């Protein structure tokens, strides 16, 4: 299995990133010379209206999409030079992604949602059970709930599993995609507070994209996205 070399945790850096999509006979610019540096332990929110380029920014930062130009550095490594396998390995070992919908696998219990990552990494899931349970407990999901499947959990609980799963691989960069879109305000606030806490305790460089300005009270920095540009 491909592994990434030992890297110092320096967080996420995007420099002059441009991304465009075909749009009929022309091209639509989703990211226009975007630069963003997020240090370990820093919680940055990227806000903007729908279509402003927030999701494209996250896709590029998550190495799920290659930019047309510019650099995406994770822990000092230029991801542009990496092939598909190396990018997959980088996501496995350096990145944690909190999805908009919880995106949990229907057949797995809460604790198994984390253990599957150990299987993906070539390890023994049984040996990682204690750590998975500890992580779930730390995000507020303990006891019998850890053995429940997604359909047996509430929306807020599913999102907590989602966050624990993103943290399981000890990532240095945590990318969060509209984490409260399916939650009411109270639960949304709890989730953002949890993200602020894990950013501090796990030392992750956290980027959260959201359109909800009411959730920004716990972030360290807010970057405004508009028409593909970051301000």
């Amino acid at each position, binding site marked *: *299995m*491909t592994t990434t070399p030992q890297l110092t945790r320096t967080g996420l850096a995007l420099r002059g990133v441009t991304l465009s999509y075909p749009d009929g006979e022309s091209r639509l610019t989703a990211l226009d010379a975007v630069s963003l540096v997020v240090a370990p332990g820093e919680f940055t929110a990227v806000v903007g209206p729908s279509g402003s380029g927030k*999701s494209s920014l*996250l*896709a590029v930062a*998550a190495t*799920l*999409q290659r930019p047309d130009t510019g650099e995406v550095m994770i822990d000092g490594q230029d991801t542009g030079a990496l092939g598909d*396998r190396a990018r*997959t*390995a980088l*996501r*496995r*070992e350096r*990145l944690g*992604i909190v*999805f*908009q*919908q919880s*995106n949990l*696998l*229907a*057949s*797995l219990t809460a604790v*198994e949602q984390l*253990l*599957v*990552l150990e*299987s*993906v*990494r070539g390890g023994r*899931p049984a040996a990682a059970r204690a750590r998975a349970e500890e992580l779930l407990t730390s995000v507020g999901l303990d006891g019998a709930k850890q053995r429940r*499947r997604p359909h047996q959990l509430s929306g807020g609980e599913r999102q907590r599993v989602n966050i624990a*799963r*993103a943290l399981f*691989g000890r990532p240095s960069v945590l990318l969060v*995609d*509209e984490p409260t*879109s399916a939650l009411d305000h109270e639960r949304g606030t709890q989730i953002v507070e949890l993200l602020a806490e894990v950013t501090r305790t796990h030392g992750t460089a956290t980027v959260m994209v959201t359109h909800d300005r009411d959730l920004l009270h716990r972030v360290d920095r807010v970057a405004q996205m508009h028409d593909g540009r970051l301000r």
Partner: protein
Amino acid sequence: MFVALRDIRFAKGRFALMGAVVTLITTLVVFLYGLTGGLAAAASSTVAALPADRIVFGAPAGAAPTVSFGNSTVSAEQQAAFTAAPGVRAAQPLGISLTRLTAADAAASVSVLGSPAELLPPLRQGAAPQDGQLAVGADTARTYHLSVGARVTVGPSTLTVSAITAERSYSHAPTVWTTLAGWERISGQSRPTALALTGAPAAAAALDRAQGTTTVALADALAGINGYAAEQGSLQLIQGFLFAVSALVVGAFFTVWTVQRRPDIAVLKAVGASSGYLVRDALAQAAAVLLAGALLGGAVGGAGGLLASAAVPFDVGPATVAVPVAAMVLLGLAGAALAVRRITSVDPLAALGASR
């Protein structure tokens, strides 16, 4: 197999349905495979078990020789030529025909094989038949209450049972064995049907040309039994179709299943699962379903065949179950492999956004 086994446990109904389909197809294939073997034995075991390497077929005067026990006839000159040919250790004449056997309390269609004692199957009881005598198979003896010393009528001749042999069958009729002279009286023919060669003539083609014969390996001589090739070909064609259907059904199931799993696959890829990991996991899932279904089908088919063998010609043996089970698993895996290839084309980018 982390996700594979949990998916099976979670979607029990769907996988049970697929497993049941594999079980039913395997059961059917085992039945068919056993029946094919049983019918092959009923049609050909007399010839297939001859202690010979090759069979020489001749033809009536003016006709071209073909691989056919029905048309073949060989002369004393041809037998002498093959006996003298370098590389041939023995050239034994054999005559074969179908007629009726009448015993004290029964009558049956039998195949009569006239030959030297060397071509007889293993004797269970008694001694090889002399002129006016007959050897019968063990099953035939049991069915018609025959024992050594019993008197039976075979065609126009009345003969005494001198031996009980291992059971053999030709053209779906149990074979009884007598001398070549005895066979000539029963069949009304004056020449043997074919020659059974031990060894191989050094210049077989030239010898065949010179003698107006055709010489084939023992296994190829089975095609000379009336209806054998057509019967086996038909059954094997059905088997082939069943195997193809099973591969298609399994492939179709896993295609649909993979399409349904695309969102999960996208998430797993987004969090770092390689395509190789996901394909291995999916193939392990297919293998688990196929193995469970095929083994159960093999067990049901084997047990059913064992029961059916009392009434129909069913070949009971390890290969009757093992070959269809192995073929089902391998062909099913091939179908599944084609289906789960789609995993490699799933874009992990689909995990982002609200598209799920």
